């Protein structure tokens, strides 16, 4: 229903379906919106809980530049992003 509505009204899916919106600046900065929680936070790995599933960011000396409800800005050397169930 939601997907249909967003397609029909041509609305972006991150607004209507609370999908994560990931914005990366090279491999040093990563902005993720529509997150629920930080599940794991280590210099090598950072796992974010999404509305559905998880998003894992791996890298080195990761740190959180800013965090507000629903948004996180990560800094460090990012190697990979992966979605998990």
């Amino acid at each position, binding site marked *: 229903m939601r997907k249909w509505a967003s397609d029909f009204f041509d609305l972006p899916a991150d607004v209507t379906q609370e999908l994560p919106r990931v914005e990366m600046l090279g491999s040093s900065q990563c902005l993720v919106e529509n997150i629920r929680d930080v599940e794991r936070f280590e*210099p090598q790995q950072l796992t974010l809980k999404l509305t559905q599933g998880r998003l894992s960011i791996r890298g080195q000396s990761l740190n959180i*530049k*800013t*965090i*507000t409800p629903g948004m996180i800005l990560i800094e460090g050397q990012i190697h990979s992003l992966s979605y998990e169930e």
Partner: protein
Amino acid sequence: MQSIYGKVELVCKGERLLDWINQAVQAQIPLEHIRWEDSGTIRLTVPLPHFFRLYALGRQSGVRMRMVRKEGAPFLWKQAKRRKFFFIGIPLFFLMLVTLSSFVWNVQIEGTERIQAQHVQALLKREGVYRGQWKGNLPDREQVQHQLLMQLPQAAWIGMRVEGTRVVVTVVEKKEVGRPGGDEVGAGPVHLVSTKNALIYDMQVIRGNPQVEVNDVVKKGQILVSGIYGNQSDPKSGKIVGAQGKVLGEVWYESDVSLPLERKRKVYTGAKVKRKRPYLFGWVIPNPWGEPVGFAKHETKERAYAMYVGKWPLPLGYIEEEIMEVEWVEEKWEPKQAIQLGRARASDEMRQKLGRDGRILGEKVLHTRVENGKVYLKVHFDVIEDIVKKQPILQGE
């Protein structure tokens, strides 16, 4: 914006740090710069207004935290409070500087030799110029100068100027010259002799032995009034005094005058333009768009108007220019007119030369000549003037 509220950097230790951070985020606490110090220790920055809520959450989850760094206005303010006297001192210093420099600290009087400085000081005090006077309360400079000059007859000029906290009053004293007529009484033994060849017109002898009479013809250097009473050839026979008096003699002069028949004269046509130009610190700001004045020949009168704040003039203002057209007009005189003019001029000159006692009995144009556009006149004057000169009597001969 955040520096107004201030920020705190914390080093936190605990078992369930991540839960605590999540709780804090859910509680709308903005966290920044979260990084691991080592396993079990996290360093983060939180705005000061949110710190107490974060601290309360930390107490619940058993997190111990330590403040590492504080920045922003609240902490500076706290520091300022601790150094209260220093921060009060800064404005106090300037306040004192301004206050103390707005009083007259010293009144200096320059150039007094015969006039007593204390006297000048007393007069100044009456005018309101004294040590401890507020500078804003000082009377007008011109007025003080005028008042002092009125009350100090020995002073020729008085100037007052304010140099910072010092008032300098410069007095220029009159040069002491013997009183005019002071030599009349008790003057040395003198004869009165004639300065010119003349016909005696009138005599007023106050003291002395007159040697000539009215209508006598005298030569230059002749004794008119002798200082020796009695027999003139024998000085022992009478008293020797300073002769004193006035002898008016009739003297003849010839003076030459020349006058051009043509003359160029500057005349204002009446056409004029007024315009204003601003100036700043004595520099007139040129207006490159100004229209050129359409006069072939012109003269400019300038008047400066300064802007005032209260009664203090500012270094800016405007200059009002009045540009007036001028024309050269040629004037031609008839020889007759020119002669008349030349005569008037000659007699003016003569009157000036004669001074107070003299007067012109008669004048006559002896000779006129027109040459090279000029009129040449020879005028004869018959005048009366004081012909007296003092000559000391040589004694002991």
